[in-house]
């Protein structure tokens, strides 16, 4: 029986080492403040306090921009860690952390990405340097002496000329709020130093990226760091790149003992969230519905530290173009620092924010043209051999199949009232590298890879694919936890790439095993990337493709929106693990439903106002509408990633369904208040 059912599954919160201490963090109550002094005289003996002097020799870190110190000075958001404590118990550590005295000098702060790019806005960072290595696959383009840590552009055709050809032009502005990943398991990490070598047990999607960043931080070789990644109790992007690892490693170095940190729920809300964004879309079409020009501007709030904000802004930018043939395209996406907690990878990686804007705008355009939203999409969709706005030629394209399936599921053509559609193009990490090994044992095989298990089922997919290739039972294939000492290199477990990339690498490894007899190694790379100044190149070697349809009813008295039916159609190519694939679709749709209807982190002067699971609502069983979905397969097709595709199209499908009833809501979530406001307009 699966250990997740019997409760035997162990996570990083359960990791333990003899003699380990427990960490607690001293967090800034101010959104932006210089740290004048840290006093630890009131802290009882037996506790270890990490102060700015203890980390003075440690370099900055950050996966795409090196803009973060182990301890913050200045503190750049409410909850930024300015000191840390280790003690024999978690309760003692937390009590001691309250006794650390910190003197601050408050600085002006900014909480909105548009205000942060206005003249005279307070600067969140004076200096920051771009990172190198595999965590940053695009050239980062900061704008000096501003809060812009990266700007991404697409220049395709000539939008001036394109709009001159347009008979109809519409322009709309949309907003999406910050949101919490809220994995049920909080962040947890345990660090231990032995003879100058650091071992970390951390629930992370990025063991190798984390190792590289920490090696730079501590000034040691990457091989001097070992990262073991136990299964996660959910992540959804929250457990990517360095989170607690630098803090526990620095505490353990000072304490001379292993140190473990486990966050509480309120701390989760100041650790990593989803990027709030403002997206403006302007689109022009000929009278017959042919799209001729599109402009997309994204203001992407990356919070106090860039994290992977440059990557998110890039993907938000090109996903906002949509899966359409458009000869003239301009995109400008800015990743902007503010004094909010850092924002990072979140299931969908920026696609949801711009697809919410661009697919809602498609329905506005359809209404202006007097063409059915389904027909307007269908006639402009990309097909094999078409050129996308990045200049790349599209291949293995199935957008029309997805859209048609979604529309049919709600009977869209027969009666579109109260119904809405959305079609999605989302890229996969490009470039990247995935390696895997297979060893023969007396009873079966051991498959080692750094693909991390977070509930998406990668262990089971590797067992099933391994068994098929090796001609054995899945139970004979052992898949140990990722360990940078013994697992071959993998870029990271993100962007729904593992089944596709590791599956291909596994095929190579099995071939190699057949040659060697004992051990086989397989590696695949996908090459490409975009020029950040022109947006030309290869955005993705593998396209995630999906569509959603929603059917809704609205109470015009109360503003209550009821989703009656939600359907997603996702291109799967070939399904490896059917229950796992279904769960990914269902889970993505439910997270999309929460995004559409109620999930929002509320801030008051930079302070999270709903940092608990009572005030921040997650979808429960009773929130489910009629939920249906399908996995579109084709004979002989390649495996396609499925981890995120069904999330981004859900909010626009619901928004478009509501708009078909004359209620035009531009900001998520679609609360009763926003429905009533839209009815009043």
């Amino acid at each position, binding site marked *: 029986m699966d250990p997740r059912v*019997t*409760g035997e599954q162990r996570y990083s919160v359960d990791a333990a080492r003899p003699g380990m201490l427990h960490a607690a963090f001293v967090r800034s109550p101010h959104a932006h403040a210089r740290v004048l002094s840290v006093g630890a005289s009131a802290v009882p003996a037996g506790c270890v306090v990490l102060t700015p002097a203890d980390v003075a020799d440690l370099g900055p870190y950050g996966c795409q921009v090196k803009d973060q110190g182990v301890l913050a000075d200045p503190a750049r958001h409410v909850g930024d860690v300015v000191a840390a404590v280790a003690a024999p118990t978690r309760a003692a550590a937390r009590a001691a952390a309250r006794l650390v005295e910190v003197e601050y000098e408050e600085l002006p702060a900014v909480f909105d990405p548009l205000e942060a790019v206005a003249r005279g806005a307070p600067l969140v960072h004076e200096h920051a340097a771009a990172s190198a290595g595999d965590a940053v696959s695009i050239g980062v383009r900061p704008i000096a002496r501003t809060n812009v840590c990266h700007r991404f552009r697409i220049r395709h055709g000539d939008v001036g000329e394109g709009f001159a050809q347009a008979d109809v032009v519409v322009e709309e502005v949309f907003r999406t709020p910050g949101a919490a990943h809220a994995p*049920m398991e909080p962040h947890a990490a345990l660090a231990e130093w032995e003879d100058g070598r650091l071992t970390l047990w951390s629930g992370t999607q990025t063991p190798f990226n984390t190792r590289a960043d920490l090696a730079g931080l501590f000034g040691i070789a990457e091989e001097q760091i070992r990262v073991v990644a136990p299964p*996660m109790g959910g992540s959804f992007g929250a457990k990517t790149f360095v989170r607690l690892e630098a803090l526990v490693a620095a505490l353990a170095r000072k304490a001379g003992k292993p140190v473990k940190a486990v966050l509480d729920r309120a701390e989760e809300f100041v650790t990593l969230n989803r990027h709030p964004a403002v997206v403006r879309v302007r689109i022009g079409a000929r009278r017959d519905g042919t799209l001729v020009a599109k402009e997309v501007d994204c203001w992407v709030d990356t919070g106090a530290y860039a994290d992977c904000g440059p990557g998110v802004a890039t993907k938000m930018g090109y996903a906002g173009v949509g899966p359409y043939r458009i000869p003239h395209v301009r995109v400008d996406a800015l990743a902007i620092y503010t004094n909010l907690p850092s924002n990072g990878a979140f299931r969908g990686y920026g696609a949801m924010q711009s697809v919410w804007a661009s697919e809602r705008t498609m329905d506005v355009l359809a209404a202006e043209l007097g063409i059915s939203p389904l027909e307007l999409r269908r006639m402009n969709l990309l097909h094999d051999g078409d050129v996308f706005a990045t200049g790349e030629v599209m291949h293995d394209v199935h957008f029309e199949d997805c859209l048609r399936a979604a529309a049919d599921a709600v009977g869209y053509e027969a009666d579109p009232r109260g119904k809405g559609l959305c079609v999605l193009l989302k890229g996969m990490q490009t470039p990247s590298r995935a390696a895997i090994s297979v060893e023969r044992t007396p009873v079966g095989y051991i498959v080692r890879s750094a693909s991390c298990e977070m509930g998406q089922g990668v262990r089971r997919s590797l067992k099933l694919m391994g068994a098929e290739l090796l001609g054995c039972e899945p139970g004979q294939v052992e898949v140990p936890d990722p360990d940078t000492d013994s697992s071959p290199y993998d870029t990271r477990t993100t962007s729904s790439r593992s089944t596709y990339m590791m599956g291909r690498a596994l095929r190579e490894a099995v071939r190699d095993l057949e040659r060697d007899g004992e051990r086989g190694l397989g590696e695949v790379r996908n090459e490409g990337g975009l020029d950040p100044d022109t947006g030309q190149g290869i955005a993705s070697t593998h396209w995630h493709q999906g569509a959603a349809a929603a059917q809704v009813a609205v109470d015009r008295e109360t503003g209550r929106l009821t989703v009656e039916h939600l359907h997603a159609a996702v291109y799967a190519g070939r399904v490896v693990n059917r229950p796992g694939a279904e769960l990914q679709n269902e889970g993505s749709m439910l997270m999309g439903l929460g995004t559409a209807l109620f999930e929002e982190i509320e801030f008051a002067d930079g302070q999270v106002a709903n940092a608990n699971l009572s005030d921040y609502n997650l979808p*429960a*069983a009773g929130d*489910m509408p009629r939920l249906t979905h399908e996995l579109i397969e084709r004979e002989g097709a390649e495996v396609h990633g499925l981890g995120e595709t069904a999330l981004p199209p859900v909010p626009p499908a619901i928004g478009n369904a509501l708009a078909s009833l004359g209620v035009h809501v531009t900001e998520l979530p679609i609360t009763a208040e926003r429905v009533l406001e839209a009815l009043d307009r």
Partner: protein
Amino acid sequence: MRVELILNGRGATLDARTDEMLLEALRREGLLSVRETCAIGVCGACTVLLDGEPVSACLTLAAQAAGHEVTTVEGLAESDPVLRAFDEAHAFQCGWCTPGFVLTVKAMQPGDEIREALGGNLCRCGCYVKIEEAVRRCGS
């Protein structure tokens, strides 16, 4: 203080502080299926059965268990029909919340409305479709 109780069918003594929650005391006993998640009794991940009734271990003082019967999933046999139903229906992804759901379902009565009964348990992976299927399997 010493808390004497029946834990997973056997007499046991928990050594707990007077202000300590059952969650911490059970974890110290090695019952790591009981997991702190929201810490305010809304998510159900730390659900245990107290005399057969589901309670949040994060809101129950260890002292309240004195003289009572406490069950965690570690106390269920592998042949337990609810465990089997969850396994067979693939009603989990990361598995963090699964023990809480299993125990909630253990306490359901015939005729209980499924979604209402599951209202106190959250699954962020969003496995509700298959969890409902698991509950229906138990019923049949």
